[in-house]
Each structure stands twice: as C-alpha cells, then as structure tokens.
C-alpha cells in the first residue's frame, strides 16, 4: 500500500439554501478543494462520491456523476458509495483505497446534500420484510427515540444528569460559533438548552442535530504527488470501514439477543479500532476527534467505546473542560453536527476538512494547540461505520 495525502479540502457553508441545487453546493466545495490543493479539475483521475437518498444523483444515488458532468466530463471513473449517513466516510475510504492501491494518483472525494424538511423517515421502503418499516409501523420510534433509549440507559447506569447533557450542547456552540461554515453560530446557556422542547425524553431540540444542506470535498493523492505539490501535506494514517456485529446488543430493528457485554455501536468501534491500528496510534494519543454527534449522548458514549477514557468517565471530562479544543480530549472542535446540522452524506467529508485545517494549524479561534493526529468517525443506517486517522 502506498502512502496517501490530503492535498486540499473545501466546503460550502451548511444551512438551508432553497435557491441552490445540490450540484451547485458540490461545485463550490470541489472548486474550493481544487484551489486549496493547487490543482485543476483535469488533473483529477477519479471521483469517489457519497450517494444521497434525498437529493440529486438522478434519483439513483449517482451524485458523483452529477459532479463530473458539472465540473467537466473528462471520462474519469466515478464511484458512488451508499452507506446511509456513513456514505461520506465510505466514499473517503474508497478514494483512499484507489490511491493507496496504486490505481490512481489523484482522487476527489465529495459529499453534498439538500435535505427535506423536518424529521426524516429512517427507512425508504414500505415493505413488511424491512425491519425499519416494522419498527416504525408496529411501535413508532424514529431516530431520536433510538438515541433517547441509549441515553436513558446510560443515565440509569452512570447517573448522567440532564444538566450534563445540556453542557455538551453548550460546549458545541462555544466552539462552533468560531466556524464560518457552521449553520448555528449563536451561544447557548444550560438554561437555554434545558428550556428547548423535548423531542424524545430526555433529549431536547438543542441536543439533537437538525437536517441541513451542505457539501464538502477533498483532493487526495499519492505521496509522490504530494511531495511535488506541497511542503505541508496532511497524511492519511488510517482509513477503515466496518459493519455492525451480530451480538452488539443495540436495539436495532425489532429485536436482537441480550448481549453478554455492554451494548455499543460495534460498527463504529470496529472501524475506529482498525483505523487506529493502521495508524499505529493509541486512543489516548489522539489530539482531537471529530465524531458523529447526531445527539449529545454520543459525545459521552463513543470516547469510552473506543478506549479514549474509562466507562462513566466522560461526564467528568466534560465538566472539567477536557473536551474543549484546549482540553486533554478535544471532541468536535468544528462545532459538530449540533452546530452544522446533518447534511447526511456530506458529513464524513466535512470531518476530513476540519481535521485537515486543525492539523495545518489553520483553525483559528477553535484551533487545538499543536494538533498532530486526529480521528474522524461516521455511522449510518444498515450498521455502517467508518473511521479515518489523519496525521501532520
């Protein structure tokens, strides 16, 4: 396998853009990434794109083909990757493999999304053989209810308080307010968060991410190209994809087996473990993490699942300010999904942008001091998990 570098990154701002198409959002992100990399579109040898269920892609998730037609049909191969909300991370992994394996020297990874309004249906099909359909028709527990069940279980196990949950949202906005690409840049107090409406008890409106429009892109290339084109490359130290294990105990679908250990997102833990192994980095040595905070709960559970701290310790690290950019375990210095909202398939690439800026020392007021190595993680419907480790 060859070494792979992130040569350039670019984003369109996150928000609601009724007057723009998803292709226009992607055009801005890809153009910015190309400019940042100092290369031209005709230098790109392949595209790995996240497939969207909601926008563009000719209704078939052919979102990478939309990008190529728009930027210029040079005849290059396009890989459209579908993995629910993990599609952006999945596309990055495929782009990484194409360069690492020697198939291509320069690949664009892109994810763009325009989301429908309101709470989305978890499943796209209405068939009685689909476990998500059965779960919603027979019970009625959409995404936030799943997060709320995990969160309530943690509260019973560790005594996590509603104030602590609110403090995670307060922290997210404290850092996100410095991010020019974030959709929600206002500051909140604990009282503001606890005053927002309950969505799925105990989770409140400001403690879960809404849906957004947005797009992000990265130009990745071989080490040889990187040395020709930049003096400050960011290296891909690890990139991995996993799916959920059969016995992880999470209440997916209608039912599973009672697990012997603690219930956890095995798809995320497996991907993170593989990416850290590839990178030769121990969990406690990470300088920062961009994790998928669809809800504040994940900011407590994931660092523990991945060995960054002990079970039940995350609340104390939060209270001590250790998850801030200046702390011992910085989490989501970008502001995370809470400040951006979820443009589902773009999120994995958005994380690559933030890690790259942090590792270059270019993140401004939200900079993690002397960041050397960072982790990014996504997960999506179907038990898809992705992780990547970038190094300076």
């Amino acid at each position, binding site marked *: 396998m060859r070494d792979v570098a992130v040569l350039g990154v670019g984003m369109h701002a996150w928000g609601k853009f009724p007057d723009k198409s998803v292709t226009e959002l992607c055009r801005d992100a890809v153009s910015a990434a190309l400019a940042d990399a100092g290369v031209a579109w005709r230098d790109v040898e392949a595209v790995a794109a996240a497939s969207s269920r909601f926008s563009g892609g000719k209704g078939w998730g052919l979102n990478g083909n939309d990008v190529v037609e728009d930027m210029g049909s040079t005849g290059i191969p396009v890989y459209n990757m579908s993995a629910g909300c993990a599609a952006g991370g999945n596309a990055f992994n495929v782009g990484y493999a194409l360069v690492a394996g020697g198939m291509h020297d320069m690949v664009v990874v892109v994810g763009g999304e325009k989301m429908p309004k*309101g*709470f*989305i*249906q978890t*499943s796209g099909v*209405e068939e*009685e053989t689909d476990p998500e*359909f*059965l*779960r*919603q*028709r*027979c*019970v*009625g*527990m*959409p995404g936030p*209810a799943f997060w*709320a*069940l*995990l*969160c*309530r*279980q943690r509260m*019973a196990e560790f005594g996590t308080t509603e104030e602590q949950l609110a403090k995670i949202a307060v922290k997210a906005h404290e850092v996100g307010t410095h991010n020019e690409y974030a959709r929600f840049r206002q500051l909140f107090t604990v009282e503001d968060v606890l005053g927002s*409406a*309950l*969505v*799925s*008890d*105990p989770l409140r409106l400001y403690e879960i991410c809404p849906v957004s429009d947005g797009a992000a892109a990265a130009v990745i290339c071989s080490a040889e190209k990187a040395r020709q084109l930049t003096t400050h490359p960011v290296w891909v130290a690890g990139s991995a994809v996993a799916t959920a294990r*059969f*016995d992880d*105990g999470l*209440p997916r679908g*209608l*039912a*599973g*087996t*009672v*697990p012997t250990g603690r219930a956890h997102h095995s798809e995320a833990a497996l991907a993170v473990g593989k990416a850290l192994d590839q990178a030769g980095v121990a969990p406690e040595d990470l300088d920062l993490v961009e994790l998928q905070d669809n809800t504040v709960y994940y900011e407590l559970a994931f660092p523990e699942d991945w060995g960054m701290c002990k079970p039940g310790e995350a609340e104390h690290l939060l209270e001590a300010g250790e998850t801030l950019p200046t702390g011992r375990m910085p989490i989501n210095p970008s502001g995370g999904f809470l400040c951006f909202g979820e443009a589902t398939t773009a999120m994995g690439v958005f994380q690559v942008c933030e890690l790259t800026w942090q590792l270059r020392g270019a993140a401004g007021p939200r900079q993690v001091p002397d960041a050397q190595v960072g982790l990014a993680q996504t997960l999506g419907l179907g038990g898809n998990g992705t992780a990547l480790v970038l190094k300076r």
Partner: protein
Amino acid sequence: MTTERVPAVADLFSEAGGVAHLHGSRCATCATPYFPRSGLCHNPDCSESAMEDAEFGPAGTLWSTSVQNYPPPPPARYDEPYEPYAVGVVDLDDGLRVVGRMAVADPTAVRIGTRVQIVVGPIAHEEDGTELVSWMFRPTDEGAD
C-alpha cells in the same frame, strides 16, 4: 357490539389469557432467538443454521425507556390529536431484547429495571373505529399502574 381489532402487521404476535407472545424463531444449534421469524441463523459463530418456530414472552425486564414527545413520521401510526407515548426496550426472560410501546397511563412514570409483561394494545384507530393493535409492555411491579 365489540370493537374490531386488527394487528398493525399480521402474524407477529398472539394473545391469550390477557398476555401476548411474540412469534419468532430460534436456532436449534446455537439457541439464538429471532423476532420476527428468520429463515437463516445470523450468528457468525453458529456451525449450522437450524431455524425452528418459537414463541417469546411474556415476562421480561425493562432495559431502557423513552417518551415519543413528537408525532413520528410515516409509516408510524397514531391517533389525532397526538398524545406522547412511552417506548421501551425489554430483555425478555427467554433471551430476546425487543422494542415496543409501553402500555402505561403516564408515559413519564416508567422506570428502567421494572418487570414487564407483553400485552396487546391499540396504537391507533381507523376511521370506522377499528383498533390497530400491536404488542406492548405492561409493568407488573407492585405500585405500577
């Protein structure tokens, strides 16, 4: 005249003597329980899939609970005006971890760790009054309603 009761999805459960059983399968080789029925054992450590029909419930312990505070998107069903309901995850005594609505008067008064039984109850009504029913969890601990 009795109200007609129609399951939200057919063949998933049956009712007898005030409690309900879930219709699933169990692998005769590795004892893994499945709900709904499965044609194949999904346990990667199982040497040979040997699926047999099995019934699960009615008794278990509540692993977690939440309140569905807002009207869920389709294909969920509920009556207008919307009233928040409690949902739960139950570890049945026979080894199945299963999701369902809670059959309780006060959705905020459900406690994790409480003992429950599976019952059948309405999740919504059709325009002609027909009850759309599903399996639910009713607390059986002393003091619960």
